[in-house]
């Protein structure tokens, strides 16, 4: 789950990391009033995605009049598929240097890592490509956390002068925030060194582990809603993983690997999948609702049902599909391939109730579905 900048900064502030004075504004007049109070400010679109600067989502303003114009231009703008409805108006700072600070889960080492660079302001990928020697890494121990002395000693090489201790502080606190919130990534970029001394977090990205939201109920409410289609929302409320795709062959399969593979074979046969939808794990009992979702997409011209049961029983899944098919009576061709746990019962059920002969090879079932979709 991602967070908008304003939410992330509130958490930074609570963690003891300095953030600029700012106000969250929902309309043009609020933005103008905020700038009257704060003086020269940045008006920033709130969107849980990078690249908003390049998209015109950040404007610098000197007074209330400019703030009004900026807010008017940004509100309602669409960035990365999100409609902008909230603005963060933040007092401008006098920056001497832009730094980069982050704590993230490093999948390869299976441990958290603290990252710092003296070349902030651009993406970490760009920093890694252009200024690799500016990056400092401190591996952390998930059980014991990160030691302040170790962070400080690694940062010795970063030419931070009198700000060395302040930057160390920020990184240690950032780690605490990462740890406390079950984050996957918390990133301050840029972390500004100010002309008059001191540090200020100018932008912040926070991404929490979806699997941990059950024990972060308060944060779960504050996260940004994911950009989803109507059908994807419906799937979520049913506890199913559904992703809408531009093709016309509807897909119903069990297990992530088999579902992706079904899509791959559709493309291999010259077709295009209309969706990703898997009913693996405990969801195998939801085949009826799942088929309803597949059919609710008006682009779907044919359906491939591909089951390979291990944990998931194909007889239970087939019963759900048959039930849904007879209830919804779609005028679409459907093609089956069914193997694994419960296979004999499943095949019998499909033959009896739908008068359809399942294909032995999934490749053949998929090819037939692609041809039928035209």
């Amino acid at each position: 789950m991602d967070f908008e900048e304003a939410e992330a900064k509130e958490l930074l502030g609570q963690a003891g990391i300095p953030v600029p004075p700012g106000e969250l504004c929902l309309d043009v007049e609020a933005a103008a009033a905020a700038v009257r109070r704060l003086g020269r400010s940045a008006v920033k679109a709130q969107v849980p995605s990078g690249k908003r600067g390049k998209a015109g989502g950040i404007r610098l303003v000197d007074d209330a009049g400019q703030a009004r114009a900026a807010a008017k231009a940004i509100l309602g703008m669409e960035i990365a598929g999100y409609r902008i409805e909230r603005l963060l108006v933040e007092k401008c700072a006098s920056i001497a240097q832009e730094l980069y600070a982050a704590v993230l889960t490093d999948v390869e080492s299976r441990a958290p890592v603290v990252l710092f660079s003296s070349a902030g302001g651009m993406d970490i990928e760009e920093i890694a490509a252009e200024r690799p020697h500016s990056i400092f890494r401190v591996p952390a121990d998930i059980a014991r956390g990160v030691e302040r002395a170790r962070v400080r000693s690694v940062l010795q090489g970063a030419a931070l002068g009198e700000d060395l201790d302040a930057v160390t502080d920020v990184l240690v606190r950032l780690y605490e925030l990462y740890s406390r919130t079950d984050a996957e990534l918390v990133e301050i970029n840029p972390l500004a060194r100010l002309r008059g001394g001191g540090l200020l977090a100018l932008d912040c990205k926070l991404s929490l582990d979806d699997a941990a939201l059950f024990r972060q109920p308060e944060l779960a409410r504050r996260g940004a809603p994911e950009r989803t289609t109507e059908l994807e929302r419906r799937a979520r409320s049913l506890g199913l993983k559904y992703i809408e795709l531009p093709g016309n062959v509807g897909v119903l399969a069990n297990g992530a690997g088999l579902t992706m593979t079904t899509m791959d074979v559709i493309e291999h046969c010259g077709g295009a999948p209309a969706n990703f939808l898997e009913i693996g794990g405990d969801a195998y009992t939801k085949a009826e609702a799942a088929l309803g979702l597949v059919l609710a997409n008006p682009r779907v011209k044919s359906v491939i049902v591909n089951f390979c049961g291990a944990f998931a029983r194909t007889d239970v899944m087939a019963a759900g599909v048959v039930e849904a098919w007879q209830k919804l009576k779609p005028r679409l061709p459907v093609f089956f391939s069914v193997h694994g746990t419960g296979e004999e019962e499943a095949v019998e059920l499909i033959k009896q109730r739908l008068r359809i002969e399942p294909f032995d090879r999934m490749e053949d079932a998929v090819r037939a579905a692609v041809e039928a979709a035209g």
Partner: protein
Amino acid sequence: MIVRRSDRVVVQGITGRQGSFWTEKMLAYGTRIVAGVNPKRAGDMHGEVPVYASVRDAAREIGGVDTSVMFIPPSAALSAAEDAVAAGVRLLVVLTEHIPSHDVMRMHALAAPAGCRIVGPNTAGLVTPGEAFVGIMPAFNRRVFRPGSIGVISRSGSLGTLICLNLVDAGHGQSAFIGIGGDPMLGTTVADALKEFERDRKTEAIVLVGEIGGAMEEAAADTIAAMRKPVVSFIAGRASPPGRKMGHAGAIVMGSRGSYWSKRHALEAAGVRVVDTPAAVAEALPRSPGFDPREPA
């Protein structure tokens, strides 16, 4: 990580719906299940299997266990793993999906120094056809698993099942199936499983069932280049859009990282035959001399 009939296995969460169902299947197959765990049912018998409050208690009472398989919900997975590691389990099979990633890191951090290998999280388990299995794979289905010489490595249970079915269909059998899991941070990587099959005497060729996301296949390329045994691979996710989690938490392409082509190119450069469809896997395998598909297991 190849499960043997002699391995002493404990089932954590044995009394739950799934734990109970699969314990029966494992026992019927020949897996040596010596204990079950449920803190609230200590002292009970689950069929023939004694139930203990913890793996530590079980190990103390029956004189050590080798392997534990966890049928445990995500929120309790870390403490269950702590228990198993403290009990001296050498192989911990974590079936649970959606364990918080900070807990997964803690799990790995405590298992490694204790000499405990984790398989998973989010694995469908391990199968050695004709011998034993732990997890939730249809080991008992003779159309899917038969003793043979192909080592199968898969991130996915469902796709692994399909590939195994195709192998048997084509007259092959498996030396073992290693489900490594669909999570992003796995205890046993593609490279670990490849090395195991390279060492295993029964294995003559290896099928690697990869999927998009992460860099495990790329990281295994060096291992493969140094291997003697042939490797054939199918990688799922070629048609998947970037930036979306395709069911498995680990199956996501970020920028070019984790992409289908990055994996395919890395594997092909290491000498792997990468095929386009699951059915093509069996065709790409070398046939071993003296192998008779009609021979009963």
